[in-house]
C-alpha cells in the first residue's frame, strides 16, 4: 500500500507571504525582473515587517507567473504581457458578471 503523508497547508497570505527570491524562482526570472513588475504596478507587493523585503500574496504570485509565461511564450515585452494579463482578467471578471445575468 501507498504511504499517505499528512501535510499542513499554509495559506499564502499576509501572514505567510512569498518572498522576492521565491517569486523570482517561480517565474524562472531574476529578482530584478520581479522588482520591475512592482515598480510598474503590475503586481502588488508589501514590505515585510521584519526584514523590510518585498513580499507577495496569492494574487500577485499568479499575476507574475502569468506575465512571465506570456513573455516567454510570445516573446513580448513586459508592458504588453501585463496588458494581456489585465485584459484576460477583465474578460474573466465580465464573464462572471454575465453568468449572473443569465
Amino acid at each position, binding site marked *: 500500500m501507498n504511504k499517505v503523508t499528512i*501535510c499542513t497547508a499554509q495559506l499564502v497570505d499576509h501572514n505567510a507571504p*512569498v518572498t522576492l527570491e521565491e517569486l523570482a524562482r517561480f517565474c524562472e526570472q531574476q529578482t530584478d525582473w520581479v522588482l520591475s513588475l512592482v515598480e510598474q504596478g503590475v503586481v502588488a507587493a508589501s514590505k515585510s515587517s521584519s526584514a523590510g523585503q518585498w513580499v507577495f500574496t496569492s494574487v500577485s*504570485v499568479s499575476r507574475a507567473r502569468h506575465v512571465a509565461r506570456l513573455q516567454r511564450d510570445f516573446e513580448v515585452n513586459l508592458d504588453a504581457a501585463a496588458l494581456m494579463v489585465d485584459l484576460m482578467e477583465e474578460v474573466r471578471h465580465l464573464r*462572471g458578471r454575465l453568468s449572473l445575468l443569465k
Partner: protein
Amino acid sequence: MEFKDYYKILEVSRNATQDDIRKAYRKLARKYHPDVSKEPDAEKRMRDVNEANDVLRDAEKRAEYDALAAGISAGGGQVPPAGWDRDFEFSGAGGGAGDVDFNDFLNGMFKQAARKRQGFAAGQGGAQAGGHPGQGFAGAPGQTFKMRGEDHHAEIEISLEDSFSGVTRELSLRSVQLDEQGRPYMGTRTLSVKIPTGVKEGQMIRLAGQGMPGEGGGEPGDLFLTVRFAAHALYKADGRDLSMHLPVAPWEAALGGQVHAPTLQGVVQVNIPPGSKQGGKLRLRGKGLPGDPAGDLYLILDIVWPPADNEATRAAYQQLATAAPFNPRRHLGV
C-alpha cells in the same frame, strides 16, 4: 490509459525544430485560449497545449520526454507505465472534485528528471555536472552536489461547501523517478491535505517540503496549490462574497414579505422589502464564505409570474389589470 503524445497535441512532427514548436504553440494558443476560443473543449485543449509546449520547448525536458516515450515503446509497445493515464500527476480521492491542473507540475518533473539523470551520469562516469546556470550547483566533477528540489505548482478544484467547512483531500502525486540504471519511471505518493476553511478562488496554498526531493542533501522543494472553485448550482463566488438568484412571487416583491432562502449555513428567513424590483439585490451580511471579515451573500431578486392556466388565475390577472392600469411601454412613446 493514455500516453500523452505532446507532438501530436502540438501538431508537429518528432523532428520539429524549436521554431516549429514555437509557431505551432502560438497558433494553437490563439485557437484554444479559453478567453477567446469558441471551441467547446477549449480549456482542456489549452491545458494540453500548454503542457506539451512546456516540455517540448525546453531541450532538456524534451530529451527526457523522448527518452520516456522511447522506453514505453521499447518496453513492450502498447502498455504505458503505470500512471500515464489522463489525470496522471494528481488524482483526487472523493469523486471528481479532486481534479487538478498539473501543467507546471509536469514541467518541473521533467526538468528534475533530466537533472537527476545528469547527476547520475556524473556519479557514474565522473562527467561534469554542469550547464545549469543559477541553480546552485556546488562541487567538482565526480563529487555529489547539493541542490534544492524543484517547487511544484498545480491547481486544485474544490466546491464552495469545501471552502465553507474545510475539507481534507487526498492527492495522489505521480512523478518521474529514476531507477538504479538511471531510467525514468512513474512513481506515486499520496498526500493528505487539509484545505483551510474560507479559502478563496485564486488562493495559493503552500505545502512545505512536498515538491521534488533535493539532491545531495539539499532541501526538498515546496508544492503550491492554487484553489479553483467548481461551478456551483446556486452560488457564484467573488472573493468571499457569494451571489445567488432568489425567485420571488410578484406579490412578495410588491407588498414585501418574509421568504426562505438557502445559504451555506442553512435555510434563513429573509425580509423582502415592499416595492422590490426585478434584479434588486439584498445583502445578507456574513452569509458568504467564512473569514475575517466573512463574506456576504447577495440575493438577486427574480420575479416569477404564475402562469394564467386556470380560470381563477386569469380572473385575478384581469382584476389586476383593472385595479392597476399602467402602460409599461410609455417610455417608448407607444
